[in-house]
């Protein structure tokens, strides 16, 4: 068994990469990909800890997360298509009409 720390570090790195992607990328699809990365990073951490403590809760929760991720991607991509239809661009920096 690999050390749990390795898994956690990997999960963290992946998460940070994903967070960076969300914050720094302008392409909406790439943002989504980064979001998926973050989710999967969380999944990794969950599975690793489930294995360590021999609990089934972690594995269960991963399934939930994957389902939610899939649903969210579906909705999100639908939103992006709708936005593309109006703005002909998926640059999220151009979506600031709801400013104060």
């Amino acid at each position, binding site marked *: 068994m690999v050390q749990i720390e390795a898994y956690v570090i990997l999960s963290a790195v992946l998460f940070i990469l994903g967070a960076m992607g969300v914050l720094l990328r302008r392409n909406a699809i790439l943002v989504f990909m980064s979001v998926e990365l973050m989710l999967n990073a969380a999944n990794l951490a969950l599975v690793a800890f489930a294995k360590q403590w021999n609990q089934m809760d972690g594995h269960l929760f991963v399934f939930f997360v994957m389902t939610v991720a899939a649903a969210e991607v579906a909705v999100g991509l639908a939103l992006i298509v709708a936005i593309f239809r109006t703005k002909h661009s998926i640059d999220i920096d151009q979506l600031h009409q709801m400013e*104060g």
Partner: protein
Amino acid sequence: METYAQLVPLVVLIPLVGMLINVFWGARLGGRWPGIIGSTAAILAFIVSGLLYFYLIGNDYRAVVVNPPFLNAWISIPSGDMFIPWQMRVDTLSVTMMLVVTGVGSLIHIYAIGYMLGDSRYARFFAYLNLFLVFMLVLVTGNNFLMMFVGWEGVGLCSYLLIGFWFDKARGEGWKNSNAARKAMIVNRIGDFGLLMGIFLIFWTFGTLDYFTPGEIANPHLAEELALEAEHAAEAEAAAVEGEAAPEGEQAAEGEVVAEAAVIEGEAAPEGEQAVEGEGVAEAAVIEGEEGHGGEAAVVYTNNDHIPTEMLGVFGKTERLLEEGGHIVNFGPFSLPFETVLVLITLFMLVGATGKSAQIPLFIWLPDAMAGPTPVSALIHAATMVTAGVYMMVRSNVFYYNADLTSLIVTLVGAGTALVAGFIAIGQWDIKRVLAYSTISQLGFMVAAVGIGAYSAAMFHLVTHAFFKALLFLSSGSVIHGMEHGHHHVHEHGHGHHDDTPFDPQDMRNMGGLRRKMPVTYRVYLIGTLALAGIFPFAGFWSKDEILADSWLVGLFDNNVGGYIALGLLLLAAFFTAFYMWRQMEMVFYGQPRTEAAEHAQESGPVMTWPLVGLAILSVFGGFMNTPENVLGLDGIFGAHRFTYFLEHSVVHAHAAEFQPVIALGALALALFAFFAARTIYGAGHALVRGSRDPLAVRPETSPIWRLAHARLYWDETYFRLFENPFNRTAKFLADTLDWAFWHDYFHNTVLRNGFDALGQFLSKPVDLGLIDGIVNGIGRLARWLAGRLRGVQTGYVRTYAVTVLLGVVLVIVILLLPLFTQAGGG
């Protein structure tokens, strides 16, 4: 006889009815009827007074107190121990005054029938005259000081109405008449203020205002003496001796009673009445029933010992309190010894007397009062109203006798007034004004007499003065009437030039030579002058000399310096009196007429001249009612000091003065000398120099003095500068500046109202709108500003939101893990 005393309310009611008839129906009756009604009322009142006089004689001069019907209690406050009734008193003093008032009054009423004929308000005139009689009689018949005060002010009111009777005379004369009337009333009111204060003091000192309670004897000493005398006379009678007999002769001589034998007439049975009549002896008290025999067994007291002190009237109480001595009077927060209180009371009453009886310093109204018709001047301002002050002081003789300080002041005031007024009279041109100042002067004589304690002399002079002063005034009215007739005659018949300058029929400069035109008037005027100047044997001689004699005796025997002062001043005043009267005679009756009006003057009708004659007779013989003893045997004919003895029953301190031949002759000589001087200066054509200037005004040595007299010592002007003008200016100042401009306008309108408005403006705009609304709105603005700022957070960029979410998550994790770190650190 006894029930006649109950008639005394009639004496007031009859003139009242006369007045009411004239007020309501007089104008309708027309002609002379109002005058006849008025005069009848006066005459009836005189008859009633006469009945009362005879009653008194029959009742041995004992006083009676009568309650008028329907009207007993006047001011009654039981819880304040205050009971002042309407109560009338019939005694020798009040009957004397009643007789004078109604007697002289009747003659004046009759005179006025003719004098006022033709006046548009004829009926009103007689209504006022009768009303005057009502009030004057209330004054003299009242048994307490408040009734006297009612009469006192009431006659002041009538004086006001009558002085201002011609209030609508043209060319501003009516206004001047009304001013004179108002002046009289206001100056009188100043005197009334003093009298009121005196009355308050009297009430709080004695608890009552009554002179005497019913049954109280005014003069116990006299009553006791006379009772003793009657006893001795009865004893002598038992020895059946008539005429002069030893026991009678001895015992009859006591005190002031003349040492003549009492002649007893009628039955002298032990039980029956013992009527003592005769000449020369003073009235004796009849004692009945003391021996308990049958017949009328009414107990008659000769003194007041049986009456407890609280029940006595003010005079009786005074005597008792003075006898006991050492009494302290408490009124309000003050307390003073009784003797001091007496001085205060008498001083205040003196103030009242100076107002009513026209003494210094309140005499200024009387000369102006001459604006009224002449009968008014005669009745009110010579014979009756002005004597009310003297009456009051004589009635209160018990007070004045025991207040030495005040008596001195009274003497000075009286004598001073006599002199000053006499002096002023020398410089006057108006015939009535001379008489007015003469009245003031003679009142001064009376007041001075009161001051030195010669109460009966004062009353005697009061009576004789009423006779000859009324005579003089009415005669002057006759003269004025004659002059007016002459003036009309001149104008009607178009003699000569038509002069539009107003003609004053009262100005002596327009007269002259009327002796031939108006013989009856001339003769009675002469009699009046002689009486006034004090020429033997006219009335004034006796009364004036009694006063002078008394002042000499008082100065000599009582060590009263006031007596000497009075004598000196009064002698000088007597000189002036004779002087200005003869001046008047010269200017009016002797010499040649100086104007056409005087040329055509006419004698007055009989309805005017007959009362004059009546008064003249009284002026000639009136003095004999009080002849002194041993003077030319006159006392054999008329009796000695009858009037004094009559008065003594009411006036405790009345006494007869022995005749002083030196003083009498001296005064007579002085008067004759004054006549001579006046004759020299004014007589035989010298009456006026260069048409209208007084000879005295021309001579350099007498000119300033005469001008001072003519200007009436600038008295009225001084009063105007000292009192009237400041009063008026203060009134205007208080009313316009202080009360209206400052208090009403400035303080209430500007300060309070405008201040309140300003406060309201301030509160509504800067405070309410500015501050409070400001705060409320400010909060709103703050919220908006904050919102505006905070709005910036919503950038619209998804990435910003993502950062926020991230940061939030990090924050939450840190917070959740914080305990771990701190624990790790600490642990």
